[in-house]
């Protein structure tokens, strides 16, 4: 089995060059310094494994690209590094549901 020193793995994954979001490879703490597009960047709020953050500032109505494919549209503007999730991204097909009910966007 391949083993790599985890400390050397970048904590953010760019899945496709066209993407405007990055995916957390592991839980990342607030204030942790990470590399984003060749620059050092301080994570503004803790982010969990598998979650997304903005690769650059995104305006409302921007189509979000992951795997190079559209996965929905922003409902509000976000700054670079902000968590992109149910509170600011909506489906272009069918609204997502939470235990509290259908996402109201």
């Amino acid at each position, binding site marked *: 089995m*391949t083993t790599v020193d985890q400390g050397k*793995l970048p904590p953010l994954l760019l899945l496709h060059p066209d993407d405007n979001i990055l995916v957390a490879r592991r839980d990342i703490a607030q204030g942790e310094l990470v590399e984003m597009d060749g620059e050092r960047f301080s994570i503004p709020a803790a982010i969990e494994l*598998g979650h*997304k953050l903005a690769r650059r500032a995104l305006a409302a109505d921007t189509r979000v690209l992951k*795997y190079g*494919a559209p996965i929905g549209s922003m409902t509000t503007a976000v700054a670079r590094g902000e968590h992109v*999730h149910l509170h600011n991204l*909506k*489906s272009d097909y069918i609204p997502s*549901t939470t235990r509290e009910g259908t996402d109201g966007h």
Partner: protein
Amino acid sequence: MSNGMRGFLRKDGRKGIRNVVAVAYLVECAHHVSRLIVQKSGADDVHLIGFPGCYPNKYALEMMKRLCTHPNVGAVLLVSLGCESFNREELRRTVHASGRPVDLLVIQQSGGTTRTLNAGLEAVRKMRAELAKQTPVPMAFDELIVGTVCGGSDGTSGITANPAVGRCFDWLIEKNSACIFEETGELIGCERIMASRAITPELGLEIEACVDKAANYYRIMGYGSFAPGNAEGGLTTLEEKSMGAYSKSGSSPISGLIKPGDIPPRGGLYLLDVVPDGEPRFGFPNISDNAEIVELIACGSHLILFTTGRGSVVGSAISPVIKVCANPDTYDRMADDMDVNAGRILRGADLDEVGREIFELVQAVAAGAPSKSEALGHQEFILTYKQFEPIGPACLPAA
């Protein structure tokens, strides 16, 4: 060189990697008696399946015929209450014609719970003695059908476990196995890219139409195929979940579009359309992961590759389920339930290496080794009402 896989040869030429006795209740009212027969038989290879409804349903009858004549099934005991509308005689005739031992017990005629239980235990005992005499024969890759499903997906699924299964699928298809992926409601957003992989333009149109049908169906139901756990694991939208799920299909051309109970005619990659035809009538297309697994098995799947991020524990009656865990943290918590730790890709492992592990595990399980869920006794099963029209002529182009 032998791949180690072996199967029990059936009259129709297919081979089963298991040799189970299926005990099938034909209405919920016969469920308890059937369960008692399975439990008191004390054998791992006696599996409980059934249909709970009292009203007739063509789909349910066809599914039960496919399941009771699945190559992994060696013998069948049918248990009816007596007054339900299920066409038990037609099912019994179909199983009998397949060359399998079959018995039908009607509780109202047998004299109630205890007498039916005793008769059922005796029938199962005889069937198992009969099956014990059968010996498996070598099995080739082009005789193998593998299905894949995802459950409890999260933000890691589309990066680790799903593409690793896709690699395994590509290698199986190179060896002429048939591989089936499904849940068109979880492929919403991928219809164009998927259609471009079809072996004919007409099949591409059928694929786009079936995803449109799924989107329309789910819109009317008011929910997409998206659970709260998906969001907790980092997925935000249905199309994001779709893109991740889609990567299970690998990169082979798509050879056909099938519906539940259709068996792939040859090796290749097949998309299974699980969303009912016509106006929504009986509720959600698949009320839980096992409903999808049952349909993959009805299409002849010998085993199922189940990818999970949040951590599903289910297995299935009839066909073994191999668990491929996408999330390394989930794997650390639930390793006893997981066959493959695909989440290690996030910690530096190579995608091909994990794909290779899955490919080798498929061969080992087809050679008789139990999967984790199988060894833990998971034999979940669910079948509910649906309606389908037959597939159109463009769905299975000639090779």
